[in-house]
């Protein structure tokens, strides 16, 4: 976007927006989160539901896992299962040299326990001594990275957060479209119809405003099986009221303008009036309202998921992960920190972007 002297209001709005530092920062943050959620799960190299039973509740760390502290107990468990004792452990550049002993002889077939445990590769027998009672084995250690730690089942939190983010973001966008579309249709119809129809339609909005709508959403979701579609419908049904009021007010203001009267006098149909005249002229406020709607929708979805009424396992969303983290705050506070950080960062960025849009669209706000 170039040209400080663009005369069209929309160009000026866009220019102001680009100049606004907080809008730029928000856009960058949102783009990064969206890209990470889109492509990240593939790059982390493991499925979100893949559990590592030996690596439960690891704290976040950049160093490779397993660390020496987790390695020893895991080895001892395997040795116990093999009915052998761990005599010596020595680590040399990613390979372990184990000496296993058993009074009745070490069963080599039991070595399959090693690769089965996620932590180790295929073992190789180096030496057999003492009539099979003393076995020296070399086994590579798998190098796994869990930058944000693991959860109570040993699943990688980073992958899970990114996959959950897909759901949260998609719900945010789709439910906003549903609510926005409903609100625009309702508001434009009321505004164009005018008179008794307008009064009745807006009275209905007033009544709905007075209702504790979130409670209805909870009833809906509990009574009919919780799931993605129901959440989208429920949230869309709740959040359209503001948009309806806004679009009606814009339509009423427009309907007094000459070009609008002319279009009507020419017999332009209602739908065409809305798409050709109402929406293009009300675009600024509608976009601002829609941008501020997205964080509210994401918040509502994670609220429902937090209560266990939203997205269900094996699917997951940020609300589900925050709920899991809240249950484990004493033993594993990072399980809360990761998803909460992503959720809050997204909400902050969306809210700031909406505010910046509103400022840029408002001619009275400072230059």
């Amino acid at each position, binding site marked *: 976007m170039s040209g400080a002297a663009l005369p069209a209001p929309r160009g000026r709005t866009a220019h102001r927006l680009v100049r606004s530092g907080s809008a730029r920062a928000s856009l960058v943050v949102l783009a990064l989160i969206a890209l990470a959620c889109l492509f990240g799960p593939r790059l982390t190299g493991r499925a979100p539901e893949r559990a590592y039973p030996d690596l439960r509740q690891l704290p976040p760390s950049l160093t490779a896992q397993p660390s020496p502290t987790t390695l020893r107990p895991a080895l001892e468990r395997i040795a116990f299962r093999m009915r052998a004792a761990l005599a010596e452990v020595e680590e040399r550049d990613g390979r372990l040299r184990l000496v296993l002993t058993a009074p009745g002889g070490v069963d080599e077939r039991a070595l399959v326990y090693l690769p089965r445990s996620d932590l180790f590769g295929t073992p190789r027998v180096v030496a057999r001594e003492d009539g099979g009672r003393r076995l020296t084995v070399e086994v590579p250690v798998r190098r796994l990275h869990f930058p944000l730690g693991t959860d109570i089942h040993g699943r990688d939190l980073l992958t899970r957060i990114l996959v959950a983010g897909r759901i949260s973001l998609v719900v945010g966008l789709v439910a906003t479209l549903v609510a926005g579309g409903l609100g625009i249709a309702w508001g434009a119809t009321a505004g164009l119809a005018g008179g008794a129809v307008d009064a009745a339609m807006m009275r209905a909005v007033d*009544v709905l405003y007075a209702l504790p709508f979130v409670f209805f959403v909870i009833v809906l979701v509990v009574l009919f099986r919780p799931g993605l579609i129901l959440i989208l419908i429920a949230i869309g049904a709740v959040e359209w009221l503001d948009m309806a009021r806004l679009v009606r007010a814009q339509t009423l203001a427009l309907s007094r303008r000459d070009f609008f009267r002319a279009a009507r006098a020419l017999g332009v149909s209602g739908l065409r009036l809305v798409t050709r005249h109402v929406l293009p002229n009300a675009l600024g406020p509608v976009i601002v309202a829609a941008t501020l709607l997205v964080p509210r929708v994401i918040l509502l979805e994670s609220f429902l998921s937090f209560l266990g009424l939203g997205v269900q396992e094996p699917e997951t969303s940020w609300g589900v992960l925050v709920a899991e983290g809240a249950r484990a*705050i004493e033993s594993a506070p990072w399980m809360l920190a990761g998803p909460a950080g992503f959720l809050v960062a997204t*909400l*902050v960025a969306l809210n700031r972007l909406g505010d910046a849009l509103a400022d840029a669209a408002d001619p009275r706000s400072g230059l």
Partner: protein
Amino acid sequence: MIGLALRRLAQGVPTLLVVATVSFFLMRLAPGGPFDLERPLAPAAMENLRRVYGLDRSLPEQYLGYLAALLRGDLGPSFSHRDLSVADLFARGLPVSLTLGSLALLLALALGIGLGSLAALRRGSLADRLVGGLAALSLSVPSFVAAPLLQIVFGLGLRLLPVGGWEGGAPRNLVLPVLTLALPQIGAIARLTRASLAETLRAQPVRTQRAMGLPPGRILRHALRGALLPVVALLGPLAAGLLTGSVVVETVFGLPGIGRYFVEGALNRDYTLVMGTVLLVAALVILFNILADLAAALLDPRLRPDA
């Protein structure tokens, strides 16, 4: 003023009727019933239960019966809490929820108006930007994130406050839940106060008062009166937000309020308990909207019907 209050109360009645109707039929449309256990009851026992609770009658009959009882102020027996009526459950839970809600509202109003005024008076200053940032953050941190965070910091880390429990409403147990409930409201009120007061302070009357040499405190008092109108209009949605927040706060902090009954009742298909809770919440929200209108009329003579 009294006429306005009465008229608005009368307008609330049809709204409550809509709420009662929608929640009644929504509950009945849903699959499952209140007596569906993992091990099905004997048919005769089921028949008995359904007769005792009046579920054997036709749906319109039940609906009219419920409305008639409602007019007498009877919310019916709870289906899942044996020997307790919905009114009994409310008598236990409501004091808890109301204590939390009213304290949170007071805290939010005091801090929100205070911080918002500070920001408006010192526009562009460090304090202004700080308040703006904090308000945006408080609006973006969901209560179900804030609650466990507060538990970690003050309960587990500093060991200053208990992480949960009610204990008869001991002040120590109230701090964290009230703070959690108030946090998003503080942000909303502060932002609104700042925007509204900043505009009022630029307006003609304030300039005149400045020119006349009125002390800044007096000017602020005059300006706040008008500037608080949008904040007062927000009271209705605020009350609704507090009630929604109480569901999370009561779950996370383990408090025996009515927020918990709601989710629990819906899961157990406790028809009367869910309808009672929805009606109660709707009545509270309507009441707050009326109070907001009255407060607005007090602040602004132009809004009084007799003016």
